C-alpha cells in the first residue's frame, strides 16, 4: 500500500512540474505581456519601463529558474496587471466558481446516474431511447449555445430569471443548469454503458438463476461493479470544479476563476495563469489520487495488486 501511495504522489508532483514548465514556455514564447497589457498604441518607452520593472528583459532561462525557485518557496508571483499577489486574486474568485460548479456537480450526479441506470435497466424500450436522445442532445450542444438558449427562454421571453451577473442566488440558476445538463448527459451515457456491460456478465446470470431477487442483483452485484467507470468520470468532474466553467462564466458574466483565466491568458499575465494552472493541476491530481484509492476500495483485486493498478 505504501508503494502504491508513494508512486502516485511522485507521479502527481511530476505532473504539476510539467504543467508549470509547459505553461511558462508557451506563455513566454507566444507574446510579450508588456505590449499586450499596455495595448497597441502604447508608447515604446512605457513598454520598456514595464518590461524592466517585471524582469521581462532578462533571458528566458533566467526567468524560468527564478520563477521555479520562487514556487519552491511558496511564492507564486504577482499579477502584472495590478501588482497584487496572484494567489490572492485567484483565491478571491474560487468561491464564485464553486458556487456554480458544486451545485452543478450535484445536479449532474442526481440526474445523470439514475438516468443511466434506469436506461440500462430498460434497454431498448421507449424510456431508454428517450433518455439516450436527450443525453446525446445534452452533450453535443455546446455549453455556450445551451446557455444562450436558456437566457433567451427564461430571461428574454419569460422574464423569470436574470440573463447574467452575480448579484443574487437567482443569477446562479441558469449557469448551474447549463453546466448541470451537459454533465448529466455525459454521466448518463457512461453509467448506462457500464451497467449494460455488467448486466451481461455471467455472475449476474448466475445470481438471477439462483433466485436472488432482481432488485438485489442490481444493487448488490451490478451497481458496485459498474461504479468504476462512473467513478472515473465523476473524478474528472471533481477535478474540473475549479476551472471547468470557463465558457459558462463568460456567457453569464460570472466573475469566477474561469473568466480570470481567460483574461490572464489573453494578457499573458503569467503569475496568475500559472497560479490557476497549479491549482487546477493540484485539484486534478488530488481527484485522480482519490479515484485511484476508490478503485482499490471498490475492487479488492486492484487493492491487492498494489502499485500495478490504476487508470
Amino acid at each position: 500500500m505504501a508503494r502504491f501511495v508513494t508512486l502516485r504522489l511522485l507521479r502527481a508532483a511530476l505532473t504539476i512540474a510539467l504543467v508549470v514548465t509547459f505553461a511558462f514556455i508557451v506563455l513566454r514564447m507566444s507574446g510579450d505581456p508588456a505590449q499586450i497589457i499596455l495595448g497597441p498604441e502604447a508608447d515604446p518607452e512605457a513598454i520598456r519601463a514595464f518590461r524592466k520593472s517585471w524582469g521581462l528583459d532578462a533571458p528566458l532561462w533566467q526567468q524560468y529558474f527564478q520563477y521555479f525557485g520562487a514556487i519552491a518557496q511558496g511564492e507564486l508571483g504577482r499579477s502584472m496587471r495590478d501588482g497584487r499577489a496572484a494567489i490572492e486574486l485567484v483565491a478571491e474568485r474560487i468561491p464564485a466558481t464553486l458556487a456554480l460548479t458544486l451545485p452543478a456537480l450535484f445536479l449532474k450526479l442526481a440526474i445523470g446516474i439514475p438516468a443511466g441506470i434506469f436506461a440500462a435497466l430498460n434497454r431498448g424500450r421507449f424510456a431508454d431511447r428517450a433518455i439516450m436522445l436527450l443525453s446525446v442532445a445534452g452533450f453535443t450542444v455546446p455549453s455556450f449555445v445551451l446557455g444562450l438558449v436558456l437566457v433567451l427562454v427564461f430571461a428574454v421571453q419569460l422574464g423569470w430569471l436574470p440573463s447574467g451577473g452575480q448579484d443574487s442566488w437567482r443569477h446562479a440558476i441558469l449557469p448551474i443548469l447549463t453546466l448541470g445538463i451537459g454533465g448529466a448527459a455525459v454521466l448518463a451515457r457512461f453509467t448506462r454503458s457500464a451497467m449494460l456491460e455488467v448486466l451481461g456478465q455471467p455472475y449476474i446470470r448466475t445470481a438471477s438463476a439462483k433466485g436472488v431477487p432482481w432488485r438485489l442483483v442490481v444493487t448488490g452485484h451490478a451497481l458496485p461493479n459498474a461504479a468504476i467507470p462512473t467513478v472515473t468520470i465523476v473524478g474528472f468532474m471533481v477535478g474540473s470544479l475549479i476551472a471547468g466553467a470557463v465558457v459558462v462564466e463568460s456567457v453569464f458574466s460570472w466573475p469566477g476563476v474561469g473568466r480570470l483565466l481567460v483574461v490572464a491568458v489573453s494578457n499573458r499575465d503569467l503569475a496568475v495563469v500559472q497560479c490557476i494552472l497549479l491549482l487546477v493541476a493540484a485539484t486534478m491530481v488530488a481527484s485522480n489520487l482519490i479515484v485511484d484509492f476508490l478503485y482499490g476500495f471498490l475492487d479488492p483485486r486492484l487493492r491487492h495488486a498494489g502499485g500495478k493498478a490504476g487508470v
Partner: protein
Amino acid sequence: MRETSRRSVLWMGGAAVAAPFVPRFAIAQTDNRPRITIAVQKIVNSNTLDVLREQSNVGERVFFTSLWEALISRDWLGNLMPQPGLATGWKRLDDQTVELQLRRGVKFHNGDEMTAEDVVFTFSRERMFGDTQPKNRATLRTSENIPTSRVTKELPAEIPAVARRAWPDLVRVEAVDRYTVRFHNGSPDVTLEGRLARYGSDIMSRRGWEEAASYLDWARKPITTGPYKVVEFRPDNSLTLEAHDEYWGGTPPLKSIRFVEVPEVASRVAGLLSGQYQFACDIPPDQISEVEKNAAFEVQGGTILNHRLTCFDKNNAQLANPLVRRAFTHAIDRQAIVDSLWAGRTKVPAGLQWDYYGDMFHADWKVPEFNPTLARDLLKQAGYKGDAITYRVLNNYYTNQNATAQILVEMWRSVGINVQMSTVENWSQIMARGPQRAVRDWSNSAPFNDPVSSLVNQHGPNGQQQQIGEWSNAEMNQLCEVLETSTDRALRRRSFRRMLEICEHEDPAYTVLHQNATFTAKAKSIRWKTAPAFAMDFRPGNYA
C-alpha cells in the same frame, strides 16, 4: 405626572418600529433619480481607474465625463473642441507658459475644495513623472517646494513614461495663488492647451492620494471632481458609481451608474432586451438591425476619434520599393468596406487627421483614390514578380477586423498583389521583427486637437512605427521637429500637409481605411445623447 394609556403605549410602540423607515421613505420621496446598469465588453484593461495607467478606449468610456475632469474640457456632445472645464479661462503668457484661472467652488468627492495645490500635485513627480526628465531641462521642479510628510507610493513603472509622453517638456507647474496656476514648458509649444485637455491630464485630490494606503488602493477609488464617485470597483466584474451631489455642474441626473462586464455580445443584447441593463455597449454593426427589430430599442453611436489603418514595413524585401506600397493604397475600395461592413455608419476620413484639429485640419486632403489600373501600373513599374507578402492580423481585435482583412486581401489580389493573411494571437506577435513582417493592422487616436498627438506621436521618430523599426523617413522626422516646436502656425500647417504627403502618398508608412465607430443600444424611452467618442456623458442635461 401624565398617565400612560394602553392606546398611547401602542402608538409609541408602533412609532418606534416605524421610525427607522421614515427617513428612508422621505429620502426616496425626494431622490427618485434612476439607477442604471450599463453592459460593456470590458470595464478597464488594467484593473485600475487611473487615467495614466488605463489609456484605452474602454477606460475613456467609464472615466469621461463621469469620474475624471480636466482643467480644459471638451465639447463632448458636440465637436470635441476645447471648452472650459475645471478652469474657467486661460491665457498665454508667452510661447512656453499658460496661465489658468481655476473654477471656484469645485468639490472633490471627499468634500474638499479643488485648489491650485491639487493641480500642482496632479502634475508632480510623485504622481506623474517619477524620475523622468523634461526634454530640455535637467530636472523637473513641479511641486518640489511643497513640503510633505506623506509616505511615498511607488508608481507603476510605465506611468512616468506615459506622463512624459503626454508632457515631454513640462518643467514646472506653479501655484500663483489659490485659484491660479501656471504651466511652464521647457520649449515653445503651441499644443499646451490641447495637452491640458488630453486624456491623462485630469485633476485629482492631493488629500485623496495621501490618505490612500497604497497606489492600488488609490487607483481603485480615485478622489476626483466628476459628477459621479466610485462606490465599488470589482475588477473584471463591475464598477458602481454614485451621484456626487456637490458637483459643480449641477445635480447629476442619475442616482447611480453600474457598469457590468459582459464579454459576449449575445449576452449583452439579451440582458438589454430583458430589461436587466438599460444600455448595452460595443454592439457590432451587424447586430444593429437585430436590436432595432424590437421597436422599443434603438442603437446610437457613430464615428470616434480613432482611424483604422494598415501599416507597412518598408524593410520587407517586397515593400522596400514605395511603388509597391503605393499600389497597396490604390487597390483599396474604402467606401465599399464602409458600406458593406459598417452599413454606412462610418466614413472614409481625410487621411490621418480629424476635424477638431481646427486650423490645422486640411479639409481638401484625400486618402489615395481607389484606382486598380494605377495600382497595376505601379506594380509593373516596381517590377513586382508576385512574391508572397505576409499580412498579420488579430482575430477581430478591431470591430470587423477579420472581414475587412479578407476583403483587403481580395482587393490586393485583384490587382496582382500576392498577400498571404496570417492570423496571430497578440500584439507582440503582430510586431515581431523578421523577414515575414510586412503588412499589419493598427488604429490611431488623437488624444488632443493637433497632429502632434497622432501623426508625430505614432509615426514620428519617437512613435511606435519607427521605434519597432518598420518605417522611417528623414524629411518626415525633420518636419516632426517643426510641428513640435514651431509657433508659426502657417509653417506648422504647411509642414503637416507635407507630412501627410510623405506618409500617405510618396513613401507610405500606412494607409487609412476608415474612421472607427462605436455603437450603444438602449431603450428608446431613455432620452440620452451619445458623444462622438467612447465617453458616455451622464452629466446634468443629458439624461431624462
